[in-house]
């Protein structure tokens, strides 16, 4: 593994530097195997002969940035993904949250909003929505726009409905959207307590004190030191005894911040900030 660096690897490194210096998007410490795969796809599908040619285009043409971000950021998501996670939030975390007069929830790396709406609906069902302010953040502007619009293809709704039911949903998902022209448009009242904003876990700072942070399937795209940076932000941002929920295959196990958290629902990767 100590062979001389391949030309394409050099090009990828330089492209990521260019993206950072010109546009302040910092992918330099992402888990590289996936970044490489996605940049190769971008090169092919956008019709460039080399990654260097792609880099030149990105540097001189800002309109290329969102297109490239579409490749670099993985947007796969679904509502109530891993229903047992949301069930655990409902049954184990919500009883603690009820004791606060007002709440702040941060959905970090919210993608097209599926995870956000899952939590807002859950909070509404549990009677907590009105006292809660939700922050939904991502680095991908197009994803944030989709999240703000709250419109999804109808062919996804069956899965969302099934997940919602499995998560212990107390209502019917159809109460929250209207269907027309092959699309499901989620009720705008679900957004009245939500602030959408551009925020990077890599380059930006803490912005408020939270009671619950849900950041699922974002940190798997980071390398270990970058995961630590993000977890440091969460640690700083969480109120004493606040909750952190990660993706099914993410954990604090290898992190330097592990000591600041206790397992709360171990199987669901839900942690609680210590009392200090």
């Amino acid at each position, binding site marked *: *593994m100590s*062979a001389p660096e391949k030309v394409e690897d050099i090009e990828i490194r330089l492209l990521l530097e260019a993206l950072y210096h010109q546009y302040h998007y910092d992918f330099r410490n992402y*888990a*590289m*195997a*996936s970044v*490489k*795969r*996605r940049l190769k796809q971008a090169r092919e599908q956008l019709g460039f002969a080399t990654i260097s040619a792609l880099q030149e285009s990105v540097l001189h043409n800002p309109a290329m940035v969102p297109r490239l971000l579409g490749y670099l950021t*993985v947007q*796969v998501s679904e509502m109530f993904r*891993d229903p*047992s996670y949301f069930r655990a939030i409902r049954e184990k975390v919500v009883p603690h949250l009820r004791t606060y007069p007002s709440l702040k929830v941060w959905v970090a790396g919210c993608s097209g909003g599926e995870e956000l709406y899952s939590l807002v609906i859950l909070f509404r069902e549990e009677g907590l929505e009105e006292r809660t302010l939700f922050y939904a953040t991502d680095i991908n502007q197009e994803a944030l726009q989709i999240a703000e619009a709250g419109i999804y293809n109808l062919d996804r709704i069956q899965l969302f409905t099934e997940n919602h039911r499995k998560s212990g949903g107390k209502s019917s998902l159809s109460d929250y959207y209207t269907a027309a022209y092959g699309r499901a448009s989620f009720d705008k009242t679900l957004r009245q307590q939500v602030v959408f904003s551009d925020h990077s876990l890599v380059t930006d700072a803490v912005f408020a004190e939270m009671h619950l942070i849900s950041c699922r*399937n974002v940190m*798997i*795209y980071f*390398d*270990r030191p970058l*995961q630590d940076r993000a977890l440091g932000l969460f640690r700083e941002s969480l109120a004493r005894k606040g909750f952190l929920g990660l*993706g*099914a*295959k*993410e*954990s604090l*196990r*290898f992190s330097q911040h592990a000591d600041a958290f206790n397992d709360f629902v171990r199987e669901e990767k839900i942690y609680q900030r210590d009392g200090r």
Partner: protein
Amino acid sequence: MNASPKAIVIGASAGALDALSVILPALPASFKLPLMVVVHIPPDKHSILAELFQAKCRITAVEAEDKEPIMGGTAYFAPPDYHLLVETNGTLSLSSEEPVLFSRPSIDVLFESAADAYGPDLTAIVLTGANEDGAKGLACVVEAGGTAIVQNPQDAFASAMPESAIAICPDAQVMSLAAIAAYLQKV
């Protein structure tokens, strides 16, 4: 082709359990190499693959964790609903990128990243399965100078996957399961 690989990657689909049960339990406790394994499994949260093979094998069998350092003598299984990738710094990553050929985990994704990380020091094995996953990945392995092995389609539970692999990589070594097991015991 390289006589002494540093890592093994294996992909299997329909019929995987029986095929792997011939290969993995045959490996001695002294087996030095890491094995990364993708088996197509339903996206349900829990997979019993690692537990099952841990009970049957002398090497260690675990479900791969994100950012885990790769250790010799260990078989790492991709978890359900995540791709498994090998990083050039000797660790594993998971990803929830789109399924490839309807599969997540995808054999192609594992093989492609492992080919990049290990180059000629990789041996890749395509076993039984009823689709085309693994063929493109195997081509990446060959292109990087690694060794390609494919289960003989004639004695595979499902022949499509080995057949597509051989179609793309005509120089792959075609072996029976018993021969693959014997081969691995000697690497």
